[in-house]
């Protein structure tokens, strides 16, 4: 069946920070550039980023990109590629100043320079003391960034396809990427976007977890499409969690609540942190608190009908103190937990926040796969940037404010790579394969004709609960293995989802079913990769890989200093070396990650 074809030089899927930054590069180079987005660009999840963007501008005190690089390698627990990390930290000042020139309203010093504030993990002089490195626009940095870059794109004549959902990557017989299929929500019609180069900038997939800070749009569409197109996924076992999100909602409760005297309690009301951290108690570090919470839940001392959360109690505090120091928390409790924190404890659970792994790329934004004995060969015409990509700069754990930097640096570098690639191509596009849209059409056809299938919402919930229980912030050997079996069963349900509404116009049931196809790929990649990695590193912490003199904090550099690559075909795993060689400086040598 033939479908309409739209032809562009470049097609970008996703209009968050990375997609918009890349689009500027392409459109300003005079290339015909299309950006496909499920939602209006300024409604992308980048809007939620508050902390700022890291750059060693040194506006308030001495700073250096090499110190930033050291912090990032250490934060990554040495799983980040040191060439990509050097590239990112060296480019930081340039991309921040460019953004300033696009009209980004950064906070400023009296001198007029960009104001910078300290942020966890960012230090001066190779880990010596905290440094002011984060550039922010009040608490709405992501929001301001999206607006500045969207306006720049409008000026540059980028063509936006808003409320369109990309469905599948199109590769020709040689494996080169020549476009994507996408559905116009307003009509339900499928189109082919024929391009010389395609960039995925679709963000993370935090919605694979039951408790997630991610907006509902974060369904890993690019990651799922890449997996279906035969691209392996890198380091998907690494997800950053926050200890206290509102159970069942995911909205973050700041650590300041425990700082003000908040106490974590289990089902019997016990202050359980006294057992895990007798001195620091509820003020122990994030990972210690998260592990204790999960242990309580796993050992049957969780609260609620499903025993799946614990309680954060501030009822013993003076209401006047709560109203004065924690007014936002009372508002969040009432709005998202149905609880007045002055009178009742808040239900909380460790909550998924950020995806460190993704589509494997190099620091030029080129998607790379193992081929002919080489671990990283570029796929012609295919690029990825931002949270959906794995460059890999975050390795096993991301530092705060490095996510906005990631999307600026690699949005720009992938845009530059695409410009160079496209300009080197013949004037005519590579031909589309004859069956370019068949796979996408067959998926939609399957949905339209499915009988006696599984409900989308129930299947998604089963996946989310399984991932939360079996592959959350603290992982247990037996539960991981059991979780793999469960997810593979849920995959069978996801393959036969059924929707009642078969209409074409803005059929949200169909859209959610198509999103679930992407989520399930991410869930499989995550739990299969996590089950196999028998060490603890960064955000991947297992009960059977504990602290020993040979393996500090359970990290096993002898066997596991390597990137995971998960292949959809047969759930096969392979590994590739971490790049320990920076571009110009000496290797930052392995050591225990201690703060």
């Amino acid at each position, binding site marked *: 069946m033939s479908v309409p074809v739209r032809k562009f030089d470049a097609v970008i899927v996703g209009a968050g920070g990375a997609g918009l930054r890349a689009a500027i590069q392409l459109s300003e180079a005079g290339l015909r550039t299309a950006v496909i987005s499920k*939602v209006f660009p*300024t409604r992308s999840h980048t*809007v939620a980023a508050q902390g700022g963007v890291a750059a060693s501008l040194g506006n308030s005190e001495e700073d250096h990109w090499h110190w930033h690089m050291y912090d990032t390698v250490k934060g990554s627990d040495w799983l980040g590629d040191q060439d990509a990390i050097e590239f990112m930290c060296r480019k930081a000042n340039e991309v921040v100043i460019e953004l300033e020139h696009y009209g980004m309203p950064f906070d400023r010093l009296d001198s007029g320079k960009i104001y910078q504030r300290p942020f966890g993990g960012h230090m001066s002089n190779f880990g010596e003391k905290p440094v002011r490195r984060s550039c922010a626009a009040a608490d709405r940095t992501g929001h301001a960034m999206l607006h500045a870059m969207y306006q720049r794109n409008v000026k540059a004549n980028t063509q936006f396809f808003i409320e369109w959902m990309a469905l599948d990557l199109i590769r020709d017989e040689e494996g080169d990427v020549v476009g994507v299929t996408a559905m116009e929500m307003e009509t339900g019609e499928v189109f082919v976007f024929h391009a010389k180069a395609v960039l995925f900038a679709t963000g993370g997939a935090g919605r694979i977890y039951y408790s997630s800070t*991610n*907006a509902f749009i974060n369904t890993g569409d690019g990651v799922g499409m890449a997996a279906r197109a035969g691209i392996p996924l890198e380091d998907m076992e690494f997800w950053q969690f926050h200890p206290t999100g509102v159970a069942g*909602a995911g909205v973050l409760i700041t650590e300041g609540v425990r700082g003000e005297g908040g106490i974590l309690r289990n089902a019997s009301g016990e202050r359980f942190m006294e057992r895990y951290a007798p001195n620091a108690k509820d003020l122990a570090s994030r990972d210690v608190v998260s592990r204790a919470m999960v242990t309580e839940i796993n050992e049957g001392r969780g609260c609620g009908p499903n025993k799946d959360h614990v309680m954060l109690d501030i009822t013993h505090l003076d209401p006047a103190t709560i109203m004065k120091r924690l007014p936002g928390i009372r508002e969040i409790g009432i709005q998202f937990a149905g609880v007045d924190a002055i009178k009742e404890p808040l239900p909380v659970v460790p909550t998924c926040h950020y995806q460190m792994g993704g589509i494997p790329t190099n620091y030029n934004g080129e998607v790379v796969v193992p081929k002919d004995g080489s671990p990283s060969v570029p796929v012609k015409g295919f690029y990825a940037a931002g949270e959906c990509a794995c460059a890999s700069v975050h390795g096993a754990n991301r530092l705060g404010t490095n996510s906005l930097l990631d999307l600026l640096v690699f949005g720009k570098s992938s845009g530059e790579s695409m410009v160079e690639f496209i300009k080197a191509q013949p004037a005519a596009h590579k031909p589309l394969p004859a069956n370019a849209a068949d796979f996408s059409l067959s998926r939609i056809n399957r949905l339209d004709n499915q009988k006696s299938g599984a409900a989308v919402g129930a299947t998604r919930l089963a996946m989310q609960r399984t991932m939360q229980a079996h592959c959350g912030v603290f992982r247990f050997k037996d539960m991981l293995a059991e979780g793999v079996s469960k997810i593979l069963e849920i995959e069978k349900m996801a393959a036969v989802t059924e929707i009642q509404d078969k209409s074409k*116009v*803005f059929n*949200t049931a169909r859209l959610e079913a198509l999103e679930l196809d992407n989520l399930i790929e991410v869930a499989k990649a995550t739990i299969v990769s996590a089950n196999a990695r028998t060490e603890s590193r960064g955000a991947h912490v297992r009960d059977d890989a504990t602290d020993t003199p040979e393996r500090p904090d359970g990290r096993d550099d002898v066997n596991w200093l390597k990137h995971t690559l998960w292949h959809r075909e047969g759930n096969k795993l392979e590994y590739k070396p971490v790049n320990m060689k920076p571009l110009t400086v000496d290797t930052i040598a392995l050591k225990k990650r201690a703060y």
Partner: protein
Amino acid sequence: MDEAANDQTVNMGRLRWHCRRGLLELDLVLQRVIDRGLLEELSEQQRAELFELLHYDDITLLAIVSGRAECEEPRLKGMVDLLRSV
């Protein structure tokens, strides 16, 4: 916004899709509206007003929904009250 305000026939699916936001807090509030079947109870005029309200950027809309800010369009008060009440 004028275009939306004058559109008396906002498609229900489109309205539902516009409830997908960049901020989780807004997703949660708007999902309650959907789950409780409140969209179906709205008149066409009210749907157009909600559609218009959803044109605000996420930061501004969350401030309005949380009661930290007031909507600059008094005629949208009914829909603001709806989102604050769920």
